[in-house]
């Protein structure tokens, strides 16, 4: 019942939040001083041709009209056409989405698989050498500029040692496109050489992207486990003489990791924001580079398209995290 109420309350706000986000981006993108129409028309266009193009693109109508029109078309899944690539934004984004998702997911998996166990160990062996070493890692992870980390990794592993490629997603032909994820496509078609090369291309950008998220996870998991370890119920279980392993595996971890679930929403935000800059460093052909390029080219519709996409995913993930949190934590359900 409580869950249903929570869901409803969040859903009621979903549409206004998204429309508000649209309005903010719309206003920002429409006050760009450079005239995008003149940019598209080219230097040789006459003023009359520019005006004709402006009319054709609909930029001569009042702003509120343009906005309402935009939202109306968006509800039909039409994000407009990029004034630079001349293709529908939806197509551009769909084309580039797999690259970003593949990168983000690999980074997410790395940070979860490495970060959570390290956080648990750090808490269980408090004040050990490992704990102190991890403290350095977590402090660094949140202080390092990811674009600089990426460049340093390129300098060491690609330029000096030559172990990995410098940038890009793959040299040569991509694997036969099934899902758009190179790793999956290569694995499905058993094209192991391409799988290996795709993995090598992924290594540096994924490491760059994962580092801050990993630091956050280690830190949060450690705090969560420590918190549970001194709670009354663990004290009680100890007093009952339950074996330490059972207490750790069955009770402490389950209870501590519920709060880590919440952290995944935050993690996702870190990764998404990081992807924009990381993709720029590694010339990764995802939507992060697309967003940066669109902003630099004053490509309104493309910028809006990216914002809608990022905002919607963000809001949905936060909603899912709230729901998961309520489902996993018995205390939340009881009240």
């Amino acid at each position, binding site marked *: 019942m409580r869950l249903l109420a929570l869901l409803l309350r969040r859903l009621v*706000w979903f549409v*206004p*939040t998204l429309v*508000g*986000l649209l309005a*903010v*981006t719309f206003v*920002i*993108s429409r*006050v*760009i*001083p450079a005239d995008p129409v003149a940019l598209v028309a080219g230097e040789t266009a006459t003023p009359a041709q520019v005006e004709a193009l402006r009319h054709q693109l609909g930029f001569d109508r009042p702003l509120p009209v343009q906005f309402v029109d935009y939202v109306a078309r968006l509800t039909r899944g039409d994000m407009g056409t990029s004034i630079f690539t001349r293709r529908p934004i939806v197509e551009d984004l769909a084309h580039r989405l797999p690259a970003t998702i593949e990168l983000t997911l690999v980074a997410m998996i790395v940070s979860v698989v490495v970060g959570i166990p390290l956080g648990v160990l750090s808490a269980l062996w*408090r*004040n050990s050498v490992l704990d102190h070493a991890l403290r350095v890692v977590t*402090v*660094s992870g*949140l*202080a*390092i*500029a*990811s*674009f*600089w*980390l990426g*460049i*340093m990794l*390129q*300098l060491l592993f690609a*330029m*000096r040692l030559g172990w990995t490629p410098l940038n890009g997603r793959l040299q040569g032909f991509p694997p036969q496109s099934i899902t758009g994820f190179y790793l999956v496509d290569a694995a499905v078609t058993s094209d192991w050489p391409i799988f290996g090369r795709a993995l090598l291309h992924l290594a540096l950008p994924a490491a760059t992207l994962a580092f801050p998220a990993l630091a956050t996870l280690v830190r949060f998991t450690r705090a969560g486990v*420590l*918190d549970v*370890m*001194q709670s009354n119920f663990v004290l009680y279980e100890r007093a009952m003489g339950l074996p330490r392993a059972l207490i750790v595996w069955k009770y402490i971890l389950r209870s501590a990791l519920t709060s880590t679930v919440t952290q995944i929403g935050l993690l996702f*935000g870190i990764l*998404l*924001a990081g992807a*924009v*800059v990381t993709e*720029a460093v590694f010339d990764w052909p995802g939507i992060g580079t697309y*967003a*940066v390029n669109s*902003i*630099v080219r*004053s490509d309104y519709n493309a*910028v809006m398209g*990216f*914002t809608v996409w*990022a*905002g919607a995913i*963000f*809001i949905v993930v936060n909603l899912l995290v709230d729901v998961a949190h309520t489902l996993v934590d018995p205390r939340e359900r009881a009240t």
Partner: protein
Amino acid sequence: MSAMWFVLRRLARDRSALLGLALIALLVLCALAAPLLATHPEDVFELHPAERLKAPSAAHWLGTDRMGADVYSRLLFGARITIVIGIIAVGVSLLLGVPIGLVAGHYHGWLSDLLMRVSDIFLAVPQVVLAIAIAQTLGPSLPNVILALSVTYWPWFARVVYAETRALQKEVFVESTSALGASAWRLTVLHVLPNIASPIIVRASIGMGFTILTAAALGFLGLGPPPPTPEWGRTIAESREFLPHAWWYATAPGLAIFLTVMGFNLLGDGLRDVLDPRLRRSRTATDG
């Protein structure tokens, strides 16, 4: 005054907070005394084509850049830009976010909902994306970077202040103050605000680090103050075409950003331990 003394004494006992304070003091010193500490102070605006891309040496401690300027000297002047960006952007975010959070936390109903939803809208997109959009719209310059960061960072303060104000409303002293007939204004400014100062201070310290990181990313993408400004992020972008040869050129400004942000983060963590009694209790119980 005695409260501040208490905080400082507590901080001094925390080794990592002390390290944070030292790093920040070093940054401030570099910024203030840049013309004195720099070995080639005139290099920030001058060209020395003969000295291009020289490795670190006795004359140029951190080597020279593509214009032949001393990297170490430019770093010192870059610290000024970093500090100005951080202080003004976080200051403006405080001025916007704290009142909004207080109003939203004090009143219940549509106004409060509306204010928090507006801040949610800003939090719905990664800060760097929104800041890129604003900085690009307004054109690359120092004031525009500061504006872009302020406009996108205030919701963090609004959220913290909102949550803390709401939590305080259940406290007996707030209830009794309003029962005694204190006005909303008096209650908020004299009684609520001093009690939620700690989380605001902690957030401000962490916000300094975060803002400086985002500012560097904007500079890296070419949206920061234009050249020849010795902004750290832009310097890293400029250095890329001279890799792997001129490794010092890319390494030095990145380390400067790293140490600066780490300073503010460590101080923020230390302040949290000292100022937030709830967390302090759990910390002393576990961390010895």
